[in-house]
């Protein structure tokens, strides 16, 4: 995460409000049911595939601990992240576009987004891995695809939603200009829709890629019972180093991790953010612009310009001409349909749609029912375990959030109010935040065990590690956004500290705090899956919790428990979203918004 110019905050606000407005219109319960059905159907498909290949023996994989192996491992990790990102970007654009322009399925697609974003991604890890291994003949490719697919699942939904909400908020007059000047759908995409959504997509990409590292590290360390799904990469390197207690290897690994993050920041995100300034919709020049020497280089390089002129532009021109010719030809040849043929066409379309819908519904019902029948094998003692675990994890997540808030809120407010402090603290915080918590976890756990702690406290620590930065950065942004004249009023009327916090600071940062807490909460639930059940040095540490139940179930191949536990976790996250976070968002948008 790097310093974001002010243009990003309005994108975020727009998104949360847009999301709540779309879902207010639809019938949430019915849609959720549909999405749940589809989800169950997918799960059934995955499990079937996995079961079929369960007995397939797999070779061991060795991780070298010498520093010379690091560049190779780093390279593999980087390739996986960026492949997954490219896939996510493409899919997000397609998904957002389809949802925005098809009113019939729009509500379903957006409700689906909402739920998919809340489901802890890591609970799918076992299933996806098994399925991918089954799908691909050479084992290496299968596991790689599994890792990429899992990272993709974590990255795609927020980008899809960002694109969708940008499409929906394109000003009416711009859209009318595109229609009246006869833009083809392609020209409209390239010259209107993508540029308008660019800033939102950039911001969400930064967040997604950062999240991707979190999941990648978990994937690379993944071991399922007797089967080793580990991939050569930074994650497995760090885990092996921690298991064997190799201090130098750990240090090298961490340094490489930080170096990669900083390099991505400077070489990729900074130029992209500087370039995306072009797409800002406010029609005023601002003084706070991000400068990037690399972008300057690209924009003024003559070699690149000649290259563009000779390759991309001729192709683009021929595309536009072909599209315009097509349209002219269609318009000239079109004979106006009389009402009878038109009615007949309509009827056929409707019948076709109905048939397809019935087939899809039948398929989904069949698979979903079969998946549910798996649940019949669950014994009641196991159900009690799951519920106990749910309660434990719920308490743990909330403790982690409370502890994190306890230090991040004062720190964030202090940093936000004092620019000089910010200048030192923010870069430090950003570096600390960008190290994926999952990479650190083996190291932290080892240290904890040495001083006598267990996985009980360790899991809370991991949740905090992974999610406190969301709260911190949001509180900083919130504190910076409190208008200076309000702060001056507080000083002028000599507010006491309690008054300042109660009347000025807490209400002022409220919307940002909520955003931070929601993201942190989601992250904590996700983290519970690895935090509560961990293999270290050939022994398995675990504690009472839903995450532990999920991991243990995948370890022993008890898919019915896995399914039930995942359903319970997803259900809890979604319910908390609906009952707690959404009303708080609404409150933040109405009562606690500063300015008109």
């Amino acid at each position, binding site marked *: 995460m790097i310093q974001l110019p002010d243009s990003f905050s309005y994108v975020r606000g727009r998104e949360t409000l847009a999301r709540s407005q779309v879902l207010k219109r639809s019938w949430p319960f019915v849609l959720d049911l549909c999405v749940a059905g589809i989800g169950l159907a997918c799960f059934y498909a995955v499990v079937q595939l996995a079961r079929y290949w369960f007995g397939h023996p797999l070779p061991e994989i060795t991780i070298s601990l010498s520093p010379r192996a690091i560049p190779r491992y780093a390279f593999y990790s980087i390739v996986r992240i960026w492949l997954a990102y490219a896939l996510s970007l493409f899919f997000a654009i397609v998904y957002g576009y389809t949802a925005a322009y098809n009113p019939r399925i729009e509500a379903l697609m957006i409700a689906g987004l909402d739920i998919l974003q809340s489901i802890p991604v890591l609970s799918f890890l076992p299933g996806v891995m098994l399925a991918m291994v089954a799908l691909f003949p050479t084992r290496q490719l299968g596991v790689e695809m599994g890792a990429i697919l899992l990272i993709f699942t974590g990255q795609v939904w927020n980008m899809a939603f960002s694109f969708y909400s940008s499409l929906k908020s394109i000003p009416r*007059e711009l859209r009318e200009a595109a229609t*009246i000047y006869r*833009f083809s759908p392609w020209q409209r995409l390239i010259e209107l829709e993508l540029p308008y959504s*660019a800033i939102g997509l950039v911001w969400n990409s930064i967040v997604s890629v950062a999240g991707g590292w979190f999941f990648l590290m978990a994937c690379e360390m993944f071991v399922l019972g007797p089967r080793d799904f580990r991939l050569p990469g930074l994650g497995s390197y760090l885990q092996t180093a921690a298991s064997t207690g190799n201090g130098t290897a750990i240090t090298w690994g961490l340094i490489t991790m930080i170096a990669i993050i900083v390099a991505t920041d400077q070489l990729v995100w900074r130029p992209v953010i500087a370039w995306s300034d*072009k797409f*800002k919709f406010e*029609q005023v020049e601002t003084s706070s612009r991000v400068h990037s020497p690399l972008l300057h280089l690209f924009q003024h390089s003559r070699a690149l310009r000649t290259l563009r002129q000779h390759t991309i532009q001729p192709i683009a021109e021929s595309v*536009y001409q072909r599209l315009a010719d097509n349209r002219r030809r269609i318009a000239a040849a079109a004979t*106006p349909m009389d009402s009878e043929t038109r009615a007949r066409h309509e009827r056929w379309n409707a019948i076709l749609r109905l048939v397809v819908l019935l087939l899809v519904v039948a398929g989904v019902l069949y698979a979903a029912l079969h998946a549910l029948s798996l649940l019949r094998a669950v014994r009641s003692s196991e159900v009690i375990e799951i519920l106990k675990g749910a309660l434990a994890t719920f308490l743990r997540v909330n403790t982690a959030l409370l502890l994190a808030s306890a230090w991040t809120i004062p720190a964030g407010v202090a940093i936000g109010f004092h620019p000089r402090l910010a200048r030192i603290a923010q870069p430090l915080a950003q570096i600390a935040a960008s190290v994926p918590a999952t990479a650190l976890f083996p190291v932290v756990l080892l240290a904890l065990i040495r001083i006598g702690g267990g996985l009980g406290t360790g899991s809370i620590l991991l949740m905090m590690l992974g999610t406190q930065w969301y709260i911190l950065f949001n509180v900083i942004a919130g504190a910076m956004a409190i208008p200076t004249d309000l702060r001056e009023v507080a000083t002028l009327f000599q507010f006491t500290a309690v008054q300042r916090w109660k009347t000025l600071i807490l209400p002022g940062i409220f919307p940002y705090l909520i955003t931070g807490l929601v993201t942190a909460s989601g992250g904590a639930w996700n983290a519970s899956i690895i935090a509560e059940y961990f293999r270290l040095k050939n022994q398995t540490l675990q504690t009472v919790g839903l995450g532990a139940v999920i991991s243990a179930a995948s370890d022993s191949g008890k898919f019915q428990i896995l399914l039930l536990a995942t359903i319970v976790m997803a259900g809890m996250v979604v319910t908390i979203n609906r009952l707690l976070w959404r009303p708080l968002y609404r409150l933040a948008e109405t009562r606690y918004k500063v300015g008109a």
Partner: protein
Amino acid sequence: MQQIIIRAEQVEKYYAQPSENRIQVISPTDLSISEGEIVALLGPSGSGKSTLLRMLTGLSTPSAGQVYWHEKPVSEAQVNVAIVFQSFALFPWLTVVENVEAPLKARGMEPAERRKRALKMLDTVGLDGFQAAYPKELSGGMRQRVGFARALVVEPEVLFMDEPFSALDVLTAENLRSELLELWQNKTIPTRSIFIVTHNIEEAVLLADRIIVLGRNPGHVRTDFKVALAHPRERKAAAFTQLVDYIYKVLTQPEAKPPALPLTPEGKPVRDQRQMHYQMLPHARPGGIAGLLEILLDHNGKDDIYRLADDLAFEIDDLLPIVDAAQLLGFLKVTEGDAAITPTGAEYANSEILRQKELFRIAAVENVLLLRQIVRAIEAKSDKTVPEEFFHDMLDEQFSEDETLRQLETAINWGRYAELFDFDASRRRFIRSEKDESESTVGPKVQA
């Protein structure tokens, strides 16, 4: 007889409600645009001017009726029009010349040819030298020039303009208007007719050969006449001011004969908002009403509305709601384009603030059904509060969603000022106002 380019036949726009009611935005209207004329469409806000423009260009489909382009239905014909927008609608990420080229790109023109035409058009509108600039580096007037260049580069047969000068300051607007007239009169542009939607009466009289005045509730044509003044037209000339005055009269006159109600397929007349019982509250603030009445008193209690608007440098959209509101409350009376203050209005303007609130309270309760109902509902309940949603649902039957929200906002404003009730914004409830009993000497008697 000039050739007719666009013809609208009995076009309507309405939104059907789940109940039998219909929100009619535009009642069945006939309109035509002929070759060689500048047509101005004038009307107060809410009269559906922009909707009508979008139906004529083919951007939106009428709920009923048909629009013809050279006698072919507009959905099937290759319509050659362009629109200049109120907010310019330029793409901020494209340079000026790229913005102007975009429609040519859509038509598949070669890059070299495109650039040549775009640069020539930029020269015509006076932006030579700015081709590589981005819109955010330009002033408002220059941005609208880019909008014009883009519209004219496709050589449209009819040029549509949707309040093109209302986002600009007065001097720039004046400048652009005269340049547009010059381009039209010297036939520098191949456009055969221009259709401009505006709420500025003077602008319409300055530019147009033909003026169409719309009324609202629902939108309909009130009058359509030719302007025979010779160019250049002087604002202070007698003929000019007479015409502007006449248009003001038309706009402020209550409907002499309401337009006919459309029939449903079964032949029953459609229930639309004129038959339902809430009158549409004009969106004016009590402070504005008080200010207008004080000014009228200064002018000896009676003044020409046109002159008032001129003195205050108001547009119709700003002045008429205040005039309508004052008339609704019985504080002034409009006859033949003149506003005359009534005795109650005079008393109101002369009183100090507490007496003003009292008079406002009496007038509001007597004349505004919605406020009466809110007060009655509050009194009828034991906890003396009523949720806003209750009235929202009733108004929703009659008005569109946006209008309902605006009506409620105005009602809340008036109610709070008049101390008829208070409104809890966080719980969205009307609550009884905590008046000191000894202060209210004249409590309004709320009649059924």
